[in-house]
């Protein structure tokens, strides 16, 4: 059986040649190198690691601008509000928990800015909002952000 299979897959060898075949993987190595360079470049150009949570669906946005510099990431996801990917509160009475967390973030940024001249504390905030989040929630979040000096708001959208 095995001998028959081997015969089936073996190339008919011309008389005088050995039966050994070598697979040409050089072209495969070339393809892999190009893929690897492309993927590594994609990773290195992202200044911010922006990836919404699994349940968050960003809306489509025409005429949007490119990636901003570093900013505080606030996500309005399916279950609640996340700051820097950490869950802060659900959508019911979130103001207290959100304010507490924003105060901590602001103090942290002030401390970093005071120690490092290269870091600016310019109140930039990046909002990753689910497309179904109502404006009533959004305006409460914006009000809380504004109270802690986060007035330069950027909304993340999916580019078509």
């Amino acid at each position: 059986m095995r001998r028959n299979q081997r015969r089936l897959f073996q190339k008919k060898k011309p008389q005088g040649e050995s039966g050994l075949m070598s697979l040409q993987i050089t072209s495969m190595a070339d393809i892999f190198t190009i893929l690897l360079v492309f993927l590594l470049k994609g990773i290195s150009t992202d200044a911010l690691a922006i990836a919404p949570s699994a349940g968050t669906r960003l809306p489509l946005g025409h005429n949007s601008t490119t990636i901003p510099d570093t900013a505080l990431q606030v996500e309005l996801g399916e279950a609640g509000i996340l700051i820097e990917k950490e869950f802060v509160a659900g959508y019911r009475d979130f103001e207290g928990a959100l304010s507490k967390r924003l105060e901590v973030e602001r103090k942290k940024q002030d401390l970093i800015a005071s120690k490092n001249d290269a870091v600016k504390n310019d109140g930039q905030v990046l909002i990753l909002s689910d497309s179904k989040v109502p404006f009533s929630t959004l305006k409460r979040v914006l009000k809380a952000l504004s109270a802690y000096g986060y007035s330069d708001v950027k909304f993340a959208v999916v580019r078509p």
Partner: protein
Amino acid sequence: MIADPQGALTQSSLPQDVEVNITPVIDCFTVLITFLLASASFLSIGFFEAATPGTDIAPGAQEPLTELHVRVRDGKTIELREKGKKSGFFTYYLENPESVRNFRAELSAAKTPAVGATRVLLSAHDKTDFEAIAATMGYLNEASLPVVIGDFGDHP
């Protein structure tokens, strides 16, 4: 390799046929590419810039000649109110391409020195979802008008 006293390589010392084994390289590449593809995000993310009320005005900045107030209703309707040098109230429908075209034309016209709008106040009905707001922000961004987003409270 053996070098002769003058430093030149002797022909007899060179191997005749060298073959580099690239199989381990391919193995490494396969693992790396699998890992990178699994962790890569293929979403192209863009941004809309906006400011919150009361924070965007620089000291000494002049009030615009015409104030534009855009309000999104029910996720389908855009209300545009113009106050100042040019006054008016217009309603546009997001689902109607002709209406959207008119909205974009009105925004472009508002930017001209004759009308003198320099920013847009954007608000929405409480139940309006972010999808409709993002669509509206796209048109405002196209007109290159800075957006101030918040609740301006002068609508029924």
